């Protein structure tokens, strides 16, 4: 498969978009649903923001936002809650994208956490995630007084997300009260809230991993190169391949980074994100690998292995 199957696929898709006016495809329906949700937020909320995590789901979300408000640019800023431990390639990509779409990019780092030197190696993944991500996010929302924040979570990612609303309320303390979720019927979203309260909005709730990849493929959406295979320096730890992305990574005695052909299925903080060995370096190859693969997407994320704190609990405390 060469690059032209790509473009062929793309223009065929566009053509079909024009002819196939009767039965919309599943991707067209998902796209319309996401666009509707985003417009609803912009129409009814005072100060929305899009949480941008630089991963593939964020890329799709950003792409949908561009479409939703075209020809206007999306009428809200992007915000990245930076743990300072992301892959270098993610930072480069983030800055390039913000420039390209012409949206304001807010980068927030939990300065207290930074001052205390909180990091995954010194404090463990649970503390690191809590301080730099969960607390960082709360700080940022308080600081800028955003009343609605778009997030790229999908319901197929995990059992507990399967039942979360698309519009999910947070108290003024950013807590999620699972016992008190609002009924959500048809596409009638209730965005009313008291002062200080906010809403997390998940416009791609109903997309699956395959939908995301297929859409990236069809729409030619840029993604971080780390998703494609390349020779990268990695060490093997507890069965995971961890990339040595910078000098902050302490090597154990006898540990020597090896150059291996790897790629990433999800992206997060590099010390917490396992790579998979792969030769896939085109989107169809990635999709093929995903379809043939035998382990679920989030297995590569160390945070999910922390059995002590379930996703439920993290969410109640304000983790996205």
């Amino acid at each position: 498969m060469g690059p032209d199957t790509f473009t062929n696929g793309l223009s065929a898709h566009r053509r079909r978009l024009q002819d196939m006016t009767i039965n919309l495809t599943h991707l067209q329906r998902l796209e319309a649903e996401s666009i509707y949700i985003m417009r609803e937020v912009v129409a009814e909320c005072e100060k929305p923001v899009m949480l941008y995590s630089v991963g593939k789901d964020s890329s799709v979300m950003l792409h949908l936002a561009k479409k939703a408000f075209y020809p206007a640019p999306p009428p809200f800023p992007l915000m990245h809650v930076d743990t300072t431990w992301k892959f270098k390639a993610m930072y480069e990509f983030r800055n390039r994208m913000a420039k390209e779409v012409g949206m304001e990019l807010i980068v927030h780092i939990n300065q207290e956490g930074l001052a205390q030197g909180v990091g995954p190696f010194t404090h463990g993944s649970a503390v690191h995630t809590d301080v730099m991500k969960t607390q960082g996010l709360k700080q940022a929302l308080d600081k800028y007084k955003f009343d609605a924040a778009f997030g790229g979570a999908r319901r197929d990612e995990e059992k507990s997300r399967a039942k979360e609303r698309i519009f999910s309320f947070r108290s003024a303390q950013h807590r999620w009260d699972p016992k008190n979720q609002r009924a959500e019927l048809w596409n009638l979203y209730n965005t009313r809230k008291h002062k200080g309260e906010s809403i997390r909005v998940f416009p791609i709730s109903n997309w699956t991993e395959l939908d995301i990849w297929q859409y990236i493929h069809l729409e030619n959406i840029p993604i971080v190169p780390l998703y494609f295979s390349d020779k990268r320096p990695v060490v093997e730890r507890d069965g995971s391949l961890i990339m040595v992305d910078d000098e902050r990574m302490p090597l154990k005695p006898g540990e020597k980074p090896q150059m291996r052909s790897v790629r990433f299925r999800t992206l997060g903080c590099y010390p917490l994100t396992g790579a998979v060995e792969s030769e896939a370096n085109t989107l169809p190859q990635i999709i093929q690998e995903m379809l043939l693969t035998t382990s679920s997407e989030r297995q590569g994320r160390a945070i999910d292995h922390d059995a002590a704190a379930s996703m439920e609990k993290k969410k109640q405390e304000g983790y996205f």
Partner: protein
Amino acid sequence: MAHQSDLIASDIDAYLTSHQYKSLLRFITCGSVDDGKSTLIGRLLYESKMIFEDQLSALEADSKKVGTRGGELDFALLVDGLAAEREQGITIDVAYRFFSTDRRKFIVADTPGHEQYTRNMVTGASTADAAVMMIDARKGVLTQTRRHSYLVSLIGIKHIILAINKMDLVEYSQERFDAIERDYRAFAARIGLNQITAIPVSAVYGDNILQHGDNMPWYKGPTLMSHLETLEIDRTDVMPFRMPVQWVNRPNLNFRGFAGLIVSGKVTKGERIRSLPSGKESNVASIVTGDGEIDEAVAGQCVTLTLADEVDASRGDVISVANDPPQSASAFEATLVALNDAPILPGRSYLLKLATKVVSATVNPIKYKVNVNTLEQLAAEKLELNDIGIVELELDQPLVFEPYEKNHDLGSFILMDRMSNNTVGAGTLHFALRRSQNVQWQFTDVNKKARAQLNRQQPCCVWLTGFSGAGKSTIANLVEKKLFSIGRNTYLLDGDNVRHGLNKDLGFTEQDRVENIRRVAEVSKLMVDAGLIVLVSFISPFRAERNGARALFGEGEFLETFVDTPLANAEARDVKGLYKKARAGELKNFTGIDSPYEPPEAPEIRIDTTKLSPEQAADLIVSTLRTRGIIPQE
């Protein structure tokens, strides 16, 4: 995630192309506990290879540990997890599952449970195209089956798949299957369900799920999966064009586009359209999407329309085909489902959202509620969680709508509480009530403004609220005397007096209190219109009602006056001996004792009776009227 297709390995591009044009089917599964719903969904996920190996090995382990199948794969465990969450008290009204085959992507709304069933099912059903109704072959059509079917019919799902499960436990008997199907069809016809496909299955062994298997050679119909893959989704594109305006896109002076989701029909460039409620007509100048301009767009697409003429439409308006527009009305008959612990009370002012429009609405009256098990009609004074009522709705302004039956998007609504902001109800519109279309507000030539000028006063409503015995009547009386002495035209509405006449049919239950206040608010509004300064002296304990009253008046016409006397002081005074009676249990629903008082959050006037005498309090009110320009300066 091994999708069956061998194409994945051999020709990924061909595979992707074939998957690009899948359609999407949303369905809901209904059934009583233990009918096999989880097992069925688990199997569908498993069979469509949506299960990864790590999940599969977890499933194997769990099946041995806690499974109900003697160590064999228990598919139900794939979708459970809900049970545990329920124990933690988490509301799980609906969980969504995803799977896809070569032909379709599926979103399954799985609604667990018993108690909250109505709320959960209605929520899950609201976005579904089809319903899989599970029946245990041993038990046949049960009360629950009837209830679920009724709810499905309310939401307007037309495709029913009757999955008669556990056929293995009835020896795969055709007779049993036929009998249940007959039974069900007889009942379903009564509630207007007629597109029914009955399929005998065994969720556990897989008969007629993907493959027919050898156990029921007598069954010639489709398997469950092939039926789900091929059933025809209702088409909304053949109806007349309608698009509620969601957002007005104005990036610069040269572009003004109306963004929205087309809810029915299609629109072509150049077509004549009408904007409602204004009724202005124009032509579609362009159909803009994120992929550029297109010539035609259909139901289900989000687009941005620009028009040839300057048309001042805003969010909540509806753009429709010019020669076949929808109607507007401000009163309806509707089905209303209560979704919240706080009951829906007739007379209370709620916010109603239909498509992209939000208006004020009151339920008035509840005609009856429906027993979902027997379909019996029962009298009701309020709708409590999970109740389904047939009600009349009154709005503060006309709304562009269509009956739900005809157009789901322009006929469905939610009700939101003004105070808690919660979604307290959801419903479907049946038809507009004649009165709303015929009884127009009469515009008279001598109006409020003219009368105000003649009287040299701005009419307004001073609304005194506070505990019984707080001093409201005393203060209101003094205020009226002072205003009278300077030649102002006033009227005092006092709680007790009104209860002797206009409201003598009302008691003190929550819903009667709501109605009591509603009537007083309406009367005050008429009096303000007549040019008077109206003093209202009512306990009016609920914020929602006071806000409802406020909503009737114009800017600056409503002065909420909080007569702030601590309960202990009011009770110590006990002028009428009522607190004593209430404490003794002789008076029920007494504010402050066994019925709540919700103090105003931002009253225009607050009177601290522990600091001010009644005389000083009255002066404070009169001087406030002066500074607000309601009566002339001295």
